[in-house]
């Protein structure tokens, strides 16, 4: 003990200590370098978002300030941009297309994903749970063009046969496809939210004689509701921004739907289909970017609210 104390004191009074304090060794530089690299990676996400927003805005803003008639743009359903004499740029029908497909998709996806999440989190045990989780994640990774293909090749003839309609590419088709597409990611988030509910809540409720369903319904779901709502909103964002599958499954016809068997066209699909033909810098091109700004803002708001809601639970 005594010698250790002596040694420490010697080191502390060592004259070289002053030198050490002023000399930067390799470890110091590695530390700084890595901190810098990680900082750039982290900040790049912000730069990309800002960059995309800047680019989309730059391309579309000319139209917004010079020629855009807000009433015509948002409130008329006439979309005929390639009319040489009198092009019309009303996106009401496109918004109706996106909204109807997304709405129907949520009707499909919410009960489906909630049920799946409850089964995985509350009932499945051990191996079953692990296998299901991997499969759900695998499902979430299926490219959207594959889903569109399923809509086009499998759902289309099925819907024609079942409902006796002339065309099977419609709100129903796209809604189901989009619902199935959004369900895995929503299941994943909902399952996380349910797993975040501590087991002692379940035990306490079970101990007082609640059945399993009562425990889920009265205790677990209310405790997880913010996370579940956040998951639904992310699903809405996914449906809203989805392009390829809706382009293939909606029928791509400008139309305010009267029924789920009507073909519609989505905002995103319009951009995807027409941008290639539009003259760069021309009016049509700018209008498409204006739609892009609109989509960007709506998606941003949806994701931001989802994030705020999910954060809400951690505080409460």
């Amino acid at each position, binding site marked *: 003990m005594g010698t250790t104390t002596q040694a420490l004191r010697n080191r502390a009074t060592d004259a070289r200590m002053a030198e050490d304090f002023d000399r930067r060794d390799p470890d110091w530089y590695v530390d700084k370098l890595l901190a810098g690299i990680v900082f750039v990676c982290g900040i790049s996400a912000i730069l990309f978002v800002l960059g995309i927003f800047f680019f989309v805005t730059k391309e579309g803003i000319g139209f917004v300030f010079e020629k855009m008639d807000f009433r015509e743009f948002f409130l008329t359903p006439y979309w005929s941009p390639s009319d040489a004499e009198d092009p019309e740029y009303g996106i009401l029908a496109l918004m109706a297309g996106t909204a109807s497909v997304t709405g129907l998709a949520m009707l499909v996806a919410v009960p489906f994903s909630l049920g799946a999440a409850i089964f995985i989190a509350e009932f499945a*045990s051990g191996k079953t749970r692990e296998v299901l989780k991997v499969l759900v994640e695998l499902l979430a990774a299926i490219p959207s063009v594959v889903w569109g293909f399923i809509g086009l090749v499998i759902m289309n003839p099925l819907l024609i046969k079942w409902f006796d309609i002339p065309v099977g590419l419609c709100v129903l088709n796209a809604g189901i496809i989009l619902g199935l597409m959004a369900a895995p990611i929503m299941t994943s988030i909902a399952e996380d939210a349910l797993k975040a*509910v501590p087991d*002692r*809540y379940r*035990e*306490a*409720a*079970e*101990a*007082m*004689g*609640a*059945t399993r369903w*009562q425990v889920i319904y*009265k*205790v677990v779901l*209310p*405790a997880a509701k913010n996370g579940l709502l956040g998951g639904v909103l992310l699903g809405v964002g996914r449906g809203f921004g989805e392009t390829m599958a809706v382009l293939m499954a909606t029928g791509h016809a400008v139309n305010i739907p009267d029924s789920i068997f009507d073909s519609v066209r989505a905002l995103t699909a319009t951009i995807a289909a027409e941008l290639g033909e539009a003259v760069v810098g021309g009016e049509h091109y700018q209008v498409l970017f204006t739609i892009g700004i609109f989509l960007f803002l709506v998606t941003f708001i949806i994701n931001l609210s989802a994030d705020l809601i999910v954060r809400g639970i951690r505080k*409460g």
Partner: protein
Amino acid sequence: MVSSSAAAVASDSAAPADNFPHKLEIRNLTIRYGNAVALRGVNLAVREHEIFGIIGPANAGKTSLLKAINRMDVFTSGMKVDGEIRFNGRDTSRLKNIYALRSRIGVVFPLPVGLPMTVYDNVALSPRLRGINNKADLDVIVQRCLTRAALWDEVKDRLQALGSLLSGGQQQRLTIARALSQEPDLLMLDEFSIAVDPVTTMRIEDVLKELRQEVTILLVTNLVQQARRLADRTAFFLNGECVEVGVTEDLFTGEVKDQRTRDYVEGRFG
């Protein structure tokens, strides 16, 4: 599970032959987790309207016993219960509806569990599960249970606050109020004072003394003096065995059958 003849033998040899009505009878109870034995051949009987204390060091099998009584073993993977537990004379392993059993047994866990709902809803949960939805009835139940748990005065102005945001001691009393809202036949407390300050502990102990009139209480505690203050009779558990059951005061001052009991209550080990 043992055959009926084995149970009869066990009851002849081990169950106390007293004339009190028994709320709970445990015969030859053995609990295993995989290969590990948590409780080995335990026999005891809890009389109606007594406070029955269970003392013993960690790993004595006290919590496993409570789990088995409440049939929470169903939810613990690998937990295997052999032997017989009779609640109000019924073998609990043969009940068709274990939810009905659990709803008549109130449990207070070592760490307070304020469910993430309002204080009011915490206490109203069990009545609601039983189908009581009338606001006026619920109001009465909530007030009565919170009062009996010595919490009403502190929370009566914030019944709509989240139960999980109360302080630890308040949450534990909320847990007790919730257990009381079940109108239980049997109240089991598992080291309830672990997360509670001494003053609150004494208040809860006073509550338990009053409750003795209405409900049978099984009190698992690691505080020997708490058992002495509260329990009419006490069992001493050690390493999965029930070493001794006796009138509480006898364990401290009278004759003991096993010297280990005296050693433990006098603090020589544990």
